[in-house]
């Protein structure tokens, strides 16, 4: 049983280049055996938070607890080497002067428990088998491929059976195919070992795929924490909505039963913090949009012109010009649609998400719209 608790963590520092990295008032709890992800763009404070958990940075405030032990805070600071953790670094940090075996055996040999050498051998082999590297024990570490180094780093982090596993963007240096495979393996491994895990990434699909819970960070703070499904379906702000998926943002005003946009009232559920009369953004995910060749009686149907219909194998990527907005839609690849024809888009009320308009705008979206007008 290992529960990680973080209470109002603070950390500010200036880099050599003058950039300020900050973590402000970050609090969260990772339940036993859960996979918890800190998700955000670069500079949001996610890596700094993770390094505070590892003991590689000393926070200026807040409390970090692993089970009943205070790791940091209340005037205490347990250094990295005295924490019961395993960590995988973005660069893997495989020691180039050691063999595969020595790399994995290192935490057992320097740690406090010091098992016998037969026990070390057994546990190293076990750890290597977990990640599928059995038989490579005597290989010099630099001779491994990128994917193998990644597995080796994971084996090294797991060999002590630590209470807490920390992963700092471990998949970002792999090519796309390998990344895909490793994240399946990582997910299976974590679910099987039920090791309490904190994962840092800027890749939303990785976060959605791997996690039990996701905390989205922005400028040093956690702006939303929820399950993958809820983060995607009920983003709390335009920033979160944009960061965890594609979508068209429609500017409007909250009103009873929906959002006033597209020259009508788009019907949808309003979140608790959105009262009628407040500025709102309607987030329309491409896969929620249905494109029809003929008018329909369903609610939230709008007439438009098909600007782009590109075949992408598993779907048809469409851009539809409505009155005052360009909407992205994913249609079935078999749909017969021609560029320039009249279409009717349906925005099913259950799948439309309204968020309070806090003035934040995704740069990519405005650019994209500008390009295609």
């Amino acid at each position, binding site marked *: 049983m290992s529960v990680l608790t973080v209470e109002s963590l603070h950390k500010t520092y200036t880099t050599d280049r003058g950039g300020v990295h900050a973590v402000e008032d970050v609090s969260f709890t990772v339940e036993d055996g859960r996979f918890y992800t800190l998700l955000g763009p670069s500079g949001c404070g996610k890596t700094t938070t993770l390094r505070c958990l590892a003991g590689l940075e000393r926070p200026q405030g807040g409390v970090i607890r692993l089970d009943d032990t205070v790791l940091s805070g209340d005037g205490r600071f347990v*250094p990295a080497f005295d924490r019961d953790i395993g960590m995988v670094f973005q660069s893997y*940090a495989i020691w*180039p002067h050691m063999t595969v075996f020595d790399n994995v055996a*290192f935490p057992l040999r*320097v740690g*406090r428990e010091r098992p016998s050498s037969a026990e070390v051998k057994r546990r190293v082999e076990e750890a290597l088998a977990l990640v599928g590297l059995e038989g490579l024990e005597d290989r010099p570490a630099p001779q491994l491929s990128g994917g193998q180094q990644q597995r080796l780093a994971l084996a*090294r982090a797991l060999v002590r059976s630590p209470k807490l596993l920390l992963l700092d963007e471990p998949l970002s240096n792999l090519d796309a195919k390998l990344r895909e495979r490793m994240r399946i393996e990582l997910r299976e491994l974590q679910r099987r070992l039920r090791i309490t895990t904190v994962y840092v990434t800027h890749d939303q699909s990785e976060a959605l795929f791997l996690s039990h819970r996701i905390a989205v960070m922005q400028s040093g703070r956690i702006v939303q924490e929820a399950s993958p499904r809820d983060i995607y379906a009920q983003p709390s702000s335009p920033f979160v909505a944009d960061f965890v998926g594609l979508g068209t943002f429609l500017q409007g005003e909250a009103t009873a039963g929906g959002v006033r946009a597209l020259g009508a009232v788009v019907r949808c559920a309003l979140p608790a913090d959105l009262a009628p009369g407040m500025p709102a953004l309607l987030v329309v995910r491409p896969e929620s949009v249905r494109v029809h060749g003929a008018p329909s009686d369903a609610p939230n149907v709008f007439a438009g012109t098909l600007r782009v219909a590109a075949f992408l194998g598993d779907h048809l990527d469409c851009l539809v010009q409505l009155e005052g907005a360009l909407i992205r839609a994913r249609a079935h690849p078999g749909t017969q649609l021609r560029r320039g024809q009249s279409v009717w888009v349906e925005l099913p009320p259950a799948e439309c998400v309204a968020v309070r308009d806090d003035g934040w705008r995704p740069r990519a979206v405005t650019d994209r719209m500008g390009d295609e007008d």
Partner: protein
Amino acid sequence: MRGARRALPARPGSGIIVPALAALLLLLLTAVPVATLVMGSLQIEGRPGFTTANYEHVYSDPRTYRLLLNSFLYAVGTSILAIGLGTSLAFIVERTNVPFRRGFFAVTLVPLIVPGIVSTIAWIYLASGRIGVLNRGLMAALGLESPPFEVFSLLGMVWTEGLHLSPLVFLVMVGAMRAMDPALEEAAMTSGARPLRTLRVVTLPVLVPALAAAALIMFIRGLESFEVPALLGLPAEVPVITSEIYFALRTYPQDYGLAGALGVGLLLVSAVGVWSYGRLTRRAERFATITGKGYRPRIVELGRWRWVAFVYILVYLLVVVVLPFLVLLFVSLVPFYIPSLDMLQKLTLQHYVTVFEHPDTLRAVRNSFVLALSSATITMALTAVIAWIVVRTTLPGRRVLDLLAFLPIGIPGLVLAVAIIFELINFPIPIYGTLAILVIAYVTRYLPYGMRTSTAAMVQLHRELEEAAAVSGASWATSFRRIVVPLLWPSLVAGWIYVFVVSVRELSSSVLLVSHDSTVLSFLILDLQQSGQSNAVAALSVMLVLSLVVIVGLAQRASGRFGVKEG
């Protein structure tokens, strides 16, 4: 990457001619002198045909083995001292929270600018048993009977040369530490290793290849060094190979056969060093840490040891920078040298006047400046082209070019001068004693440094930038001039500044190659020292060091980055 290399452009023209000329020039500068040296050592002046008589003569003499042993001990000692000092400094300045670390960085590099002849003379005044200031001071202060230091000894030689070379080690190790991924240490710490254990089990082993490479280079530099053996070794009766070669050619009748046979011997020893260095660095390249990526090093919190480290650096700077400079300043300002503070009441500028009135001074200044300018320019231009051939083409001989350009690192300056003299004996045009001959020697000596800078920069340059120029219709020359050179510019300037400085410092080749008309500053200092005008020497040294510091400072400011690099 290997498969993506390409051969030279198919269209003949500048793309063939310029690189071909550069390769030919490289051959003339490196392989030919070595071959001539070997041939010359197999001949006896005035007699036709080849003979091994010189070798039999030299290598049957037990004295030769004493020289070799001295050279070896001196080079090993120098290397150990330089490595110990340079590495500890690099660690403190680069990796710890020692106070004022940024300021130290610049000051630590000042000794790089100081010519070896100047620092050697300074150490005579500081630690000679008879007249050394430190000896006199300590004897008076502690009531000692005999002087505690003696610079005229093997130990004194090691001390002087080791201090002189330590900033080079500092630079190499700072580079190695910056190239090391801090996550390697962090991974050890999150695995449960305490800081000292991390240092021992991870940090040091990862740095070992860089350390060993630096040690070998220092060993070679020790073997070939000339100033210390000539000024300290000869009076101390600790002759080494270089001082013996110098002696053979400076006394009448000049014994070219002896110089040649000794030169080849020295060349062989240092070739072994270079060969091991090559093997070692190739192995180091296989270490995944050497990625050419820059990291923000992890700062080690020293706690109360912070101030101990601070004092250590202060003492180092005192010994390497402040004391040598102060003693020279003192000598240059007193009417005659007596190691006593009473002399401070008799300060005079007369020696500065003497220096300016000396008939050779202005010529030496002009020659040194012209030589430094032209050597730096030619070296960087040549190595830029050679680096392009080595990095960009698939020519079968490109590895040989790389090797040839590195070869001079193992040719002691004195031996190179002997080789050039051998070449000139049969040369139809009388260029002995001209500046041209010195330019040839300097360019040859500094090819490895130019090559290192150029290659490192060329590797970073994506080949598609040139290919884009080619498909836009640019010829090789245009693409090189308009694309490659401008993108390499910062590195080329850095290399240029370095070659400029070391050319002004150069003595070990110049000493055999200068004539009355082509005298240079470093030789003038040696000449004045040997004719007993020690106060004038000090005055000249002070002015030389100050102007070099100013020139390098200005050049760096102009180029906007630190310009000193060394392999």
